[in-house]
Every structure is written in structure tokens, then in C-alpha cells.
């Protein structure tokens, strides 16, 4: 008896707690609506036409709103310093949270934003856009006339395939061409000259190699690849990336890798492409040339090696990475965040301050023009013809295949042709995914053939099977009626053929007077489908 009484008591107490808890959750919801009403009376100082309050504001008014920003450890102190100024000027509070390095912001953003716990604004790199936009995590920004004040390439980098701008850039980073000023008086104009200078110094016993690739060979030797005409993804006429045009096995790319292999065979370049190795060799004067980014400036300076940064030989182009501010699509203050970025961030004073500690060339024209640091100026020149890193999600399929292709060629496991052809094939297979090679017949009949949907190019129930004669066949039982269908390859709509056998052509039509068994036959040569009704 005593036991059940105590349980009853517990339940009662619990119930009261539940009610109390309910009441408590009610309160915070009511809170935020109140403050905005008040401060409207406070004239904003930004408007010159407004008269400042005559009564001395002894205590600061409560901020009308606040913006949460996720920043990296370099940018956080600057933003924090500006937050005070921003609060007094506009009565809007900036809450800046330090998430460590820039690349550490990506994962928390992906997990927290959909859960409603993300910031309003976050710092990121432009090549995240693919994943972020396809997942609905960022929202476009309209810079209006202010767009003219930014370096065009940096805006291009933050523009997605839909033509919209998704970030306000503040800094760019790309590889620069470093040379040892003690060993080399004039920077070479061609890659062959690089090897010549290296050869002479090697014969004289001064250096070990001419140059080394410091890091993953794809990214870190891109200026060599582009000098020969190599590329990663092609672009369509509007400048949007085209993931079906893979350039890893393009003529220029194979030529470049062949040239690199030649340098390795001659002993002018090590076949390992390790970051540490390349840097150690340059910093100890064992190689006269190095391709390195602004992130390595600190260590190269500390090593005391005499150096200068300049443009790449043969107009070689590095990848351009652009850092910028993006807006969380789940933010409740999208309009305020957009206003903050266009009115406060996209100004010379802000860009100047953020440039000063970042050790990266600015993405703002007027700040970039006044770059005093010769290294950053050189870095900026080397990046003038840079290619913005493709911001489409398909780029994720490229990195390891690309690196492996070059490594296999440099170590002599495969010829450059073989290795780069393999790499291109791997990328294309990864992009197509698991269903590469599937021939499907999406259409309005599919729900009768065991698919959950109509017009599904990835439905396994309607995948066609190849016979010994090379033709693909599919037999289905259909009820009387009119149907439409098309041929789609690789389980996606990317490559599809219509009734004229042409890409993206019109639908096939099929009329059945009675319930019947239909066999579709697809000829991969002509891309045409014939039907047999039985």
C-alpha cells in the first residue's frame, strides 16, 4: 500500500513539474517579439537626416536583433572587435563563435543548420557550395552595384550553376611560384627553363632536384598541367561547370604528366609528392623552385630561406579558392544577414581590416590594389589567371582518382596515357554512381511494372537486359491504355534518348487496345526502341 501511495505521489509531483515545464517553454517564445518594438523609438545614427536624441542616452538601449556568425580563429578577433562598433552604429548585436580553422566549419554547418542550431552567417570556402546548395543550406545574396568592387574571379567562384551569388568573398588563396633568390636571379618563363636551371645547379652540386610537388599531386601541380592545356572539368558557354566533360585524360593533361614523368626520370623531380618533403627541400635550399600557397608563408618565412613569389612559367594557372561569408538558409534573420553583408561587409573599411591579419590576397579590388606585402602581391599576380575550384558536388569524385593517376604515372606503374585514362574513367564511374551502365526505360507505364513511381530512370524493375545480339530488352505486362516513355542511361536523366534517337528527344508513345505483354527492344547503336506486343 505504502509503495503504490508513493508512486501516486511521484506521479502527482511529476505532473505538476510537467505543467511547470510547459509554462517555462512558453516564455522564451514570447520574449523575442518584445524588444524590437521598443528600440524603434531610438533613432539610428546611420541616417544623417535623423536627429539624435536630445536626452543623453546614459544606458545603451537593448539591441533590436542579433546575428550569430560562425568564424575561424583568424577572423573571430576581427569580427569581435567590429561587433562593438556595429552595435553602437546600428543597434544590432553580433555574436561571433570561433570554430577553429575554416575547414572545420563545414561539418558543423551540415549537421547543425537543418536542426535549426546553425548561425545566421558563416565563413566558408566557395567549393562547399555544391554540397550546401544541393542540400538547401545556403541562400543567395544580391550585391547589386557593389559587385563591381569585388575581384570578378572571386565572385565567379561564389556563383553557382544557376547564375546566383551565394557568398560575399573576402580573400582568395592560390598557389604561387616560389624561387630561391640566392640560386636563381631571374624567374624562368617556361617550365623547360625550370628544369634547365635545376639541371645546371644539380650538376654544380648545389641542389638535389629542380622542383618538387608539395602535396597531393592533382591540386599541387595544376600550374604544370594547365600550362600544357590540361583541365579538370570543362565549362559551358555560360561559364557553368560541365561534369560530363572530364579533362583528366585530355591531350594537354597527358602531355603534362608525360613531361612531369620525364623530369622524374631525369632525377630533377622526386617521385614522392609529400607536402613535408617538398617544403623541407625548398627551405633547406635543396630545390630552387616550389609551388606553395599562402598557408605555407609563415613556415617559409621562418625557415630564413631567401625567396620571392611570382607568376607561374608558361602561364600555368593554379586553382583559386575563395573564402567568404555565406548565409544559412535556415536562419530566421535572412534579410538582416543579407543587409549586414551588403551594407557592412562589402565595404572598404571592413575588407581592409579583415585583410590585415588574414595573410591572403583580398577579394576586394581597392584593398587588393594597395597590397603592400610583396609575397601576397606576388601570390595575387600568380592567381590572376587562376581557375576557380569547381564548386559543383561532382568535384568530390575527382580528387583521389586525379591524385592516383598522376602518382601511378610518376612512379612508373603505368604510362601517363594509361593512368590518366583510368583516372578519367574512375571519375566518370563515381559521378554516375552505382547504376553506371544501366539502360532504363522510364515512362508512364512504370508503376505497372513494379516501380513505385512513374518516370523513374533508376528503377531496377524496368532496367533493360542486354542479349547476345547486343540489343537490350525489357518485357512487361501492361493494361490497355496510352503510355509514354524514353530511354535513359546510367540510372539518371543526364543522358536520355527520345523517339527520334536523339539526345533529349521527344517521348515515345504507345497505345494498347487491350491488356498485353510488351517487349521493348533498344538498339545501343541507333539509340532507337522498337516494341513487340504479344
Amino acid at each position: 500500500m505504502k509503495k503504490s501511495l508513493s508512486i501516486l505521489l511521484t506521479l502527482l509531483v511529476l505532473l505538476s513539474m510537467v505543467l511547470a515545464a510547459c509554462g517555462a517553454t512558453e516564455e522564451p517564445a514570447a520574449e523575442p517579439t518584445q524588444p524590437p518594438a521598443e528600440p524603434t523609438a531610438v533613432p539610428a545614427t546611420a541616417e544623417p537626416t535623423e536627429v539624435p536624441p536630445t536626452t543623453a542616452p546614459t544606458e545603451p538601449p537593448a539591441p533590436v536583433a542579433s546575428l550569430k556568425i560562425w568564424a575561424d580563429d583568424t577572423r573571430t578577433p576581427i569580427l569581435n572587435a567590429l561587433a562593438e562598433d556595429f552595435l553602437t552604429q546600428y543597434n544590432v548585436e553580433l555574436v561571433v563563435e570561433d570554430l577553429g580553422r575554416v575547414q572545420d566549419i563545414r561539418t558543423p554547418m551540415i549537421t547543425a543548420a537543418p536542426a535549426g542550431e546553425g548561425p545566421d552567417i558563416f565563413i566558408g570556402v566557395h567549393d562547399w557550395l555544391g554540397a550546401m546548395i544541393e542540400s538547401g543550406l545556403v541562400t543567395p545574396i544580391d550585391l547589386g552595384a557593389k559587385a563591381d568592387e569585388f575581384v570578378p574571379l572571386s565572385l565567379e567562384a561564389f556563383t553557382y550553376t544557376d547564375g546566383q551569388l551565394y557568398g560575399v568573398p573576402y580573400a582568395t588563396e592560390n598557389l604561387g611560384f616560389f624561387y630561391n633568390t640566392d640560386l636563381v636571379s631571374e624567374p624562368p618563363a617556361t617550365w623547360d627553363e625550370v628544369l634547365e636551371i635545376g639541371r645546371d645547379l644539380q650538376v654544380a652540386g648545389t641542389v638535389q632536384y629542380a622542383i618538387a610537388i608539395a602535396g597531393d599531386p592533382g591540386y599541387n601541380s595544376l600550374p604544370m598541367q594547365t600550362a600544357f592545356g590540361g583541365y579538370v572539368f570543362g565549362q559551358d558557354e555560360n561559364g557553368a561547370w560541365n561534369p560530363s566533360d572530364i579533362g583528366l585524360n585530355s591531350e594537354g593533361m597527358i602531355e603534362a604528366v608525360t613531361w612531369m614523368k620525364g623530369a622524374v626520370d631525369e632525377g630533377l623531380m622526386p617521385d614522392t609528392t609529400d607536402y613535408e618533403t617538398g617544403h623541407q627541400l625548398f627551405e633547406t635550399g635543396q630545390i630552387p623552385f616550389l609551388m606553395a600557397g599562402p598557408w605555407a608563408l609563415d613556415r617559409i618565412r621562418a625557415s630564413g630561406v631567401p625567396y620571392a613569389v611570382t607568376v607561374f612559367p608558361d602561364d600555368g594557372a593554379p586553382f583559386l579558392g575563395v573564402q567568404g561569408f555565406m548565409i544559412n538558409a535556415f536562419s530566421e534573420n535572412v534579410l538582416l544577414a543579407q543587409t549586414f553583408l551588403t551594407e557592412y561587409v562589402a565595404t572598404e573599411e571592413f575588407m581592409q581590416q579583415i585583410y590585415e591579419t588574414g595573410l591572403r590576397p583580398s577579394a576586394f579590388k581597392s584593398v587588393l590594389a594597395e597590397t603592400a606585402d610583396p609575397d601576397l602581391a606576388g601570390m595575387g599576380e600568380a592567381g590572376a589567371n587562376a581557375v576557380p575550384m569547381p564548386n559543383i558536388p561532382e568535384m568530390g569524385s575527382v580528387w583521389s582518382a586525379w591524385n592516383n593517376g598522376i602518382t601511378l604515372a610518376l612512379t612508373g606503374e603505368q604510362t601517363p596515357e594509361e593512368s590518366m585514362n583510368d583516372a578519367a574513367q574512375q571519375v566518370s564511374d563515381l559521378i554516375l554512381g552505382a547504376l553506371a551502365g544501366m539502360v532504363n526505360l522510364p515512362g508512364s507505364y512504370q508503376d505497372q511494372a513494379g516501380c513505385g513511381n512513374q518516370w523513374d530512370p533508376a528503377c531496377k524493375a524496368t532496367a533493360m537486359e542486354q542479349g547476345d545480339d547486343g540489343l537490350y530488352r525489357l518485357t512487361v505486362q501492361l493494361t490497355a491504355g496510352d503510355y509514354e516513355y524514353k530511354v535513359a542511361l546510367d540510372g539518371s536523366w543526364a543522358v536520355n534518348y527520345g523517339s527520334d534517337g536523339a539526345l533529349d528527344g521527344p517521348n515515345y508513345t504507345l497505345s494498347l487496345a487491350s491488356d498485353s505483354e510488351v517487349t521493348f527492344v533498344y538498339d545501343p547503336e541507333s539509340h532507337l526502341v522498337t516494341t513487340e506486343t504479344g
Partner: protein
Amino acid sequence: MATVTLQNARKVGRPSPVLPRLFRLAIVVAMDSLVVWFLLKLAALGYYPFAAAIGIIALFVNVVLLRKETYPIRWMVVGLALMALFVIYPIIFTVWVAFTNYGEGHLITKEQAIDQLSKQTYLPPEGKAYAWTAFKSPEGEYALWLIGEGGNGYLARPGEPLAQPQPGELGVGELDASGIPQEIEGYERLNAFLAAADSNLTQVMFGEEGNTIQVRSPREAAELLPLYVYDRQQDAMIDQQTGLVYINLRGTFTTSSGQSLRPGFMESIGLDNFENFFISPALRGPLVQLVTWNFAFAILSLLLNFSLGLAIAVLFNDPDFPLKKLIRSLLIIPYTVPALITILIWRGMLNPELGVIDRALEGLFGWAPPWFTNAWWAKVAILLVNLWLSYPYFMLICSGALQSIPDELAEAATVDGASSWQRFWRITLPLLLVAVGPLLIASFIFNFNNFNLIYLFNAGGPPMANTPTPAGHTDILISYVYNLAFSGSRGVDYGFASAITIVIFFIVASITLFQFRYTRMWEEVSENV
């Protein structure tokens, strides 16, 4: 027996424990109210599965603490609750994710995606766009001053037709240089930030019904119309501008001709992830080679590490070994340094250009093994580093186990004329295996999935030639699928990764079961002794 008497003693010794019980009740109530508050929060944010998991755990804790029969396990209840939360819940979550397309491109829920798409607007061909300035009355009502294409100023209020007042009309004050009234009677002019600070501003419809104007961006307000409307019947988004129907196709709204809407959303896709792993030749890739190396790596690591550890332990088991304590302490050092650091140091020491080992070998023999570029030497290097990392562990457990083997057995064998070799193989080793057998299995499983070592040392390199997907010669299953799941066309694919994890779990589980059979055999050996 002992426990029974103890309980009796307590019953007799203590009077009815009212105070402790009240205390316990207070704790339960405090905990429950905390849990309930937490649950409400979670439910409000939409984390229903997590809320349910917490709720079940809380219920369980309550039962344990309040029921007399279950009272004895109260000491374990915290541990059990934590296990449920941090082990069982993630397992359930992983299994669930394996049947969805969760990953980049499909991160948000369907509701969120529909909500986001429904908010998208478009400007109809005859629609007009304006630059805007917001004014607000003390009552919180908004008015917009709009400037159209020709530079004409308009006054827009919610529910009223657009007006084009001159200064002085409708309470409009003098215009400033950019054509915006400095004041409007009854309203306060807001600067861009004050206006934007109200997140509801974009929802306000200005102007007459049927011809409303909405704020779209900091610089533009326009006669916008919603672009997409969700049709529950068809489970599709309908484009209001073109009439296109976007059907939900595995978490992406897609038309019958292949156009699709961003963003995609999380959706159950049945067994697709598993099928893709097993069916697709492109994804299976060099699986046979990888699995072979994976087993070879785990077995060789185990044999090498255990043999070296055991050898050292046997050496030090001799009481007359000189400087025993000092040397043993030194030998344990590799175990005390974090593996992360050790691996990176080894990576540096084996570096072909700068590494100490390679420099030394080259100086002595004029040749050093290409640790990072040759497939076989890379495998040797991995095994070497793993040996360095794990032999102290086996040394420690073998020394302990050796102590527990009675000396008499060895003495008896000596009397019977067994050589020291025979003594080791026939007596010491079988007895030792009884003690360390389970640890060997644990070590095998650990090495089978030793992602850290592979990934930090050379990330699976050097690359394999002629493979359908990128793979390296030292890649083990877990590092290979890590790359596979995180470098697909959509970027990170958690659904696919979860599916592969489950497959690997079954591989490891079956090995373990198989090995447990063997340990039982060892137990029989010990019984016979």
C-alpha cells in the same frame, strides 16, 4: 549465503527507512522533471526518435529506482542508461540511416524541403520591382516607400492600393536627395538594419489584395507570387509559372523529363544502398584484393605483435635477467606515446628524401626501400609500424599470464625429461593461450578495422593501377569504403556509408563467432591439465 545474512541484518538493524526513501523519491522527481523538460524541448525541435529513446531510458530508470525487485541493479542503472544512449541508440540510428539516402544533397527532411521551396517566389512578366525604404508606426505597422523604374516614388501600406503622393500629401514630408521622404506622418523612418531586424518584414503583404508587394531582398520589393505549391495527392511540387509537375523521386522533386528541384531531402530508399554495394561492378572495385590484404594485415599483425611480445615476456620471466626493470620500462614506452604521434613520427622517419631510416640505409647500403611508392614495401612498413605500436601490449599481458602458470608444471616436465623447447610448446603456450585467447580475438578485430593506422600512415597508398574505383595497395576494407562513401558524386553519403558499416559488422561478427569456437577448444585443453 553471505548476502542473505547481510540483508537480514540490515532489516533487523535499521528501523523503517523513511528518510532515505524520501530522499530517493526527491532524486527521482528531480531527475524526472529534468527529463520531461528536456523531452519537451526535443519534441518542440522535432527530434522525435531521440526524444522517444530518452523517454524509454527515463522510464526504465524510474522503474528500477521505484520497484523493490529491481532495486539491486540500481548501481548499474547509470551505466546501462548511458550504454543505451551512446551505444544502442547510435546502432539503431545507423541501421535506420542505411535504408535512407541521407547524405549531402539529401540532408534535410521532406517538410523542411517543401517549406523552403514553398517560400520561393517569382516575378510574373507584368510584375513590377521597386527599391524600398521601410517606415514603421509606433503601433508596429509598416509602410514602404517604393521607388520604381522611372524614379517615381510610391507609398505602399498593407491592404491599401499603391499611392503616388507628392510631398505634403498623405503626410509625406520633404524628399531627400535619393527621393525618399524624410518623414511620413505617424511613421518612423527605419534604416536598412532596423528594417531588416524584424524577421517578419518579408512576410508582410503591401498594397491591394491580388496585387501585393513583398520585400524580397535588402534592395528589392516586388509583386511576387509563390513559385511552387505542394500537391499532397501526387506528392509533387507544381511550378506555378510553367505548370511543370515535379514528382518526388527518391528524395528529389523531378519532372518526367528529368528537371529537378533543389534541395533534395531525406527519404527511405529501401535496400538500394546494400544493392548498390553488392551489384554494381563500379563500386565493388578491387574488393577481392582489398579483403585479402585486410585479412593478411590483421592476421600477420596479430602473429608478429604477439610473437614479439611473448618472446620479450618469456625472456624477462627469467628472474636472473640483468637490468630487467629498466629495460622492461623502456620497452613499454612505445605503448605510452599516443598512436597518432607515433604513426606520424614513423611516417617522417621512413620518408624517402628526409627520413632518418632511409638516410641511414642509403648511407650504409646505397639503397633504401621505397616505403611509400612500392606496394610490397608499403605493406611491410605498415606491419612494422603496427608491430612497434602493439608489441608492448602483448608483452604486458603475456608477462602477467606467465606469472599465473605454476612453476611446478615446468619442473615436473623437466623431471620427465622434456627439453625447454618442448616445455614451451607443450605446456607454457597452451596455458598462456587460455588466458590471452580472448585478447587475441579483440586484437584481431581491432586490427581488422585499424582505420587510424592506415589513414594516418599513407592513406592507403600507393595507388593501385587498373581499378574501376580509386583504391590503394594498403587500403583495408574500412579505409576503402570511407573513401568510397565520402567521395561519390553527391559528396558525403551517410546512407551508403552506414550500409557498408553494417556489412563489415557482419563480416567481423562471423569471424568472431568462428574464433570463439577455437577459444572453447583451448578451454578444454586447460581442463585436461
